[in-house]
């Protein structure tokens, strides 16, 4: 059969610099590089290249680069290279297109259309290197009113809270979708940073119970790995109703990845597909959700906050209002640019809404209904830097979830081939020889560095605004101005235009 699909990338090798050390050959799980003894030459099979840059990063003489192939279809604005390529793939396979990581389509990134304020003359900015600056955040239901006893002393009636040293958490990525070493790195980093990481729907590996105080355990529609000890191990429990990359559909971890400890941790037989249904089969209403929230609270003696995670979709504000009334302590909202280990391409590219708009409308709605104190808001879905975090908090978030950013810190190059299971960086794979490429000593250090750097930057930006505590930034939309946005967009975001 003729192969209609031509390579998207080409490996370019500088013959003058290549010393034929064969590191590229040994490091590529896609078998792109091969040493040909007869010709005494390294040969590259570009059609297998996923552009993960493992060979480029490890080449000791920098002899390699990956370039976009300029071999082109006769494309036009309507029939793009991508559109044609997808048809060729489906015409050959007859299957649903699969993709990994977040929505890559050129939809507006509202973070990039908002600008942050700074103090000049009339109010002093603060130097975070000289003055105290608070980034600590508490997540959970806040008491409705201050109560004092007959002697006038405060009655401490604050429900259970999660304490974060900085408003950043690692969001849900299951053991199975990512490797043991990736989980170990996240767990260690979360502990050192005094924040939290999230198990995703894959259960908690027995080795990581020791990180329980910094773990959020997830309960999703497949209920994989959920049992009493699991619920008790975590600092909080997250009910996953939806995921930004694939709202409205469940998950499917193919049987090939259910090996060894993954099978044991998920509590399903080896080699069986792990299918998470699209809905929770016991949740068809807010009342049903309330039952699960309280079942989980009951099971853990009301000692752990319950998070409900949803994807950002069209009626997100009304849905969030319902969740706030269901007894949940924290709502996590995942925008349409959120990542995934595998999702149908069409769902990932076409479904959901931007997190910025979802966050603004949810925060606004909860305030209008007087129930904002009932829940904390955590947002995720492509938080790329500390600027995005400051903007999210100013729009009303209590904290953010990062996952793609965390993976990139560990070495991920966003080649978006997670679904092949052959991650050359040892992250999205279960193949032992690939998993060992991610040494948690290295990766956890890189994660700690990233979050520490972002925390410094958050302090710098807060200081610039004359704000010395993250609490004073939350929902402070006057600190934001839109640029190049329509009146409608500004209204939804609840911000003024630059110059106003």
């Amino acid at each position, binding site marked *: 059969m003729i192969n209609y699909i031509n390579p998207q990338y080409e490996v370019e090798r500088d013959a*003058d*610099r*290549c*010393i034929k*050390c*064969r*590191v590229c050959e*040994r*490091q590529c799980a896609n078998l792109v590089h091969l040493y040909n003894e007869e010709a005494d030459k390294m040969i590259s099979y570009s059609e297998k290249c996923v552009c993960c840059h493992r060979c480029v*990063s*490890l080449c*000791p*003489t920098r*002899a390699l680069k990956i370039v976009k192939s300029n071999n082109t279809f006769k494309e036009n604005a309507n029939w793009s290279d991508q559109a044609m390529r997808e048809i060729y793939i489906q015409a050959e396979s007859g299957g649903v297109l699969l993709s990994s990581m977040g929505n890559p389509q050129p939809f507006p990134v509202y973070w990039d259309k908002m600008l942050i304020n700074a103090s000049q003359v009339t109010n002093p900015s603060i130097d975070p290197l000289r003055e105290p600056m608070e980034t600590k955040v508490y997540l959970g239901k806040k008491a409705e009113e201050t109560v004092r006893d007959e002697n006038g002393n405060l009655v401490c009636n604050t429900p259970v809270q999660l304490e974060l040293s900085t408003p950043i958490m690692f969001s849900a990525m299951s053991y199975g979708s990512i490797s043991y070493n990736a989980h170990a790195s996240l767990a260690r980093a979360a502990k050192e940073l005094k924040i939290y990481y999230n198990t995703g729907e894959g259960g908690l590996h027995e080795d990581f119970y020791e990180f329980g105080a910094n773990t959020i355990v997830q309960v999703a529609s497949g209920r994989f790995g959920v049992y009493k000890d699991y619920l008790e191990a975590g600092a909080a429990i997250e009910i996953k109703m939806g995921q930004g990359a694939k709202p409205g559909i469940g998950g499917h971890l193919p049987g090939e990845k259910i090996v060894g400890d993954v099978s044991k941790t998920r509590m399903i037989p080896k080699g069986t597909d792990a299918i998470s249904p699209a809905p929770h089969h016991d949740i068809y209403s807010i009342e049903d959700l309330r039952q699960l929230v309280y079942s989980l609270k009951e099971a853990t003696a009301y000692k752990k906050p319950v998070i409900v995670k949803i994807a950002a979709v069209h009626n997100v504000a009304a849905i969030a209002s319902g969740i706030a009334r269901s007894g949940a302590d924290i709502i996590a909202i995942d925008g349409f640019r959120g990542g995934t280990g595998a999702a149908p391409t069409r769902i990932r590219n076409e479904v959901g809404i931007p997190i910025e708009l979802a966050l603004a409308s949810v925060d606004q709605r909860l305030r209008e209904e007087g129930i904002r104190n009932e829940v904390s808001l955590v947002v995720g879905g492509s938080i790329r830097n500390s600027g995005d975090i400051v903007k999210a908090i100013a729009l009303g978030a209590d904290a953010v979830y990062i996952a793609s950013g965390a993976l990139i810190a560990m070495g991920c190059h966003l080649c978006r081939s997670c679904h092949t299971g052959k991650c050359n960086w040892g992250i999205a794979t279960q193949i*032992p*020889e690939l998993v*060992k*490429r*991610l*040494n948690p*000593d*290295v990766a956890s250090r890189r994660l700690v560095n990233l979050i520490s750097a972002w925390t410094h930057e958050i302090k710098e930006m807060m200081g610039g605004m004359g704000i010395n505590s993250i609490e004073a930034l939350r929902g402070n939309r006057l600190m934001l101005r839109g640029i190049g946005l329509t009146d409608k967009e500004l209204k939804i975001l609840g911000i003024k235009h630059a110059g106003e």
Partner: protein
Amino acid sequence: MKRVYADEKWCLGCKLCEYNCAFANTNQPDMAVALKNTEIVPRIKVEETGKINFAVSCRHCKNPICIQSCITGALYKENGVVMMDKNKCVNCLTCVLVCPYGAIVEDSGGSVFKCELCIKNICKEPACVKGCPNKALLFEER
């Protein structure tokens, strides 16, 4: 004393250590120039069996059998590091035979050579450790 330790758990068998070692000992500034079209003879060697790899180099033993067996005194200890004086070596290869780690290598130039922790070359710290992408090699006190 600080030594180079290999951790099999994290060794990928990429052999970058071998190339970094060979490069460091050429004392040249560019690896592509230094190692182009040469067969490298590194002082560290990645041992491989199936899926297990780890790098082996001189252990700088407390009582080095190589020094005891050296007939000319070319091998000697300096601050705990087993060093090699090329001028004294007569290439009898006794040390190559007795080293239980296979850490001494025959040179084509009529002498042997071995890991000297990059003390003598321009790197000044073990190049294998510095270039290991997965911290499978550590230079530390144990």
